[in-house]
């Protein structure tokens, strides 16, 4: 049985594609045959983040319209045996995504032996986002610790409860996981940023993981490598933990608390900050 997981958020720019690429790559590195589908028709970017932009021939719209087979459209990753990308169309509009055609494509992927199907949702709550979530068994709601992102995530959680195939059929609801990205424990401790516990309390879904704000995310996307494949990166470590948890393994949460600082380092640290503000 293939498990369908949507990576969604409502708000744009919070790290959906970064997370979809890393979760898919992480699952594949763990030996699970995984396909990641870009649903952002018209604004595709998963191909760039995955580093396969020059190998796109057919896309999701071609598959949904019956112009190409799933097998023809899938791009096999060059770094990882079990990883495949199904890119979005760059030219068509979102109305081309018929649910029936998407369902058929997902069934075909399952028949090909894929164990995990990751759906990278576009931003917004319109047709593209609804198409990406419709067939989901599980959802990863990507949220920044910031007011507009939290509000939009709440809307998306409401839609996952009401507008998916599972909701329509009265099956067990889509399992929603919260992934907090771009988190800075230091700023949260200083009262400048919503804490993990605040976001959890507001949204009321289970915490999947916390990805710390990290330079390695930009470096990895510059190179077209999912950040989970980077070495010596705290964001990569955090995504590896997330993948373990998605596979049902225990992994203690990290990156929530900042390093503990002693009296003197606080004293000098505070002095440094004042100097920066003053300058």
């Amino acid at each position, binding site marked *: 049985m293939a498990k369908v997981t949507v990576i969604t958020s409502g708000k744009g720019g919070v790290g959906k594609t970064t997370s979809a690429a890393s979760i898919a790559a992480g699952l594949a590195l763990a030996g699970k045959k995984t396909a990641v589908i870009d649903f952002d028709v018209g604004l595709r970017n998963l191909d760039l983040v995955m580093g396969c932009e020059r190998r796109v021939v057919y896309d999701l719209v071609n598959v949904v319209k019956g112009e190409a087979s799933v097998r023809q459209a899938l791009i096999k990753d060059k770094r990882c045996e079990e990883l495949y990308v199904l890119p979005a169309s760059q030219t068509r509009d979102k109305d081309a995504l018929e649910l029936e055609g998407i369902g058929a494509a997902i069934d075909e992927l399952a028949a090909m032996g894929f164990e995990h199907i990751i759906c990278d949702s576009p931003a917004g709550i319109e047709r593209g986002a609804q198409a990406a979530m419709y067939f989901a068994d599980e959802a990863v709601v990507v949220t920044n610790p*910031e*007011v507009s992102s*939290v*509000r939009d995530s*709440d*809307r998306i959680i*409401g*839609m996952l*409860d*009401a*507008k998916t195939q599972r909701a329509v059929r009265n099956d067990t609801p889509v399992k929603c996981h919260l992934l907090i990205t771009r988190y800075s424990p230091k700023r*949260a401790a*200083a*009262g*400048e*940023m*919503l*804490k993990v516990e*605040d976001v959890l*309390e*507001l949204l*009321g879904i289970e915490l999947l993981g916390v990805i710390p704000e990290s330079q390695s995310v930009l470096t990895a996307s510059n190179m077209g490598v999912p950040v989970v494949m980077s070495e010596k990166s705290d964001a990569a470590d955090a995504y590896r933990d997330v993948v373990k948890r998605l596979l049902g393994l225990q992994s203690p949460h990290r990156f929530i608390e900042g390093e503990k600082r002693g009296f003197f380092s606080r004293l000098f640290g505070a002095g440094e900050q004042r100097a920066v503000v003053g300058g």
Partner: protein
Amino acid sequence: MSILDWFFFREPDSAKLAKDRLQIVVARERASTGDRVQSYLPQLQQELLQVIAKYEKLDLEQVSVMLDRKGDAEVLEINIVLPEDPKRGSSVRTRGLSLSTG
């Protein structure tokens, strides 16, 4: 400002303000978008008004229905502001009704 104040000086806690604002906006939107279980709230408000209007003169604004979350429990709070009653000489009487749901 004393030396001690300087040592313990902290910026006002903006994250706390963000959380408070979000709690209000999220509760209101859950009630109005109808995506979640609370979708019946606007209708409940209308029907309550109709029942109360049989006995008292009331406007829609005088019946407020709010859903709040406290820990694991959800609290449905219904506030009805009854108009002034000249015979009894009282000003505005406010009666609150609270129901807790799982």
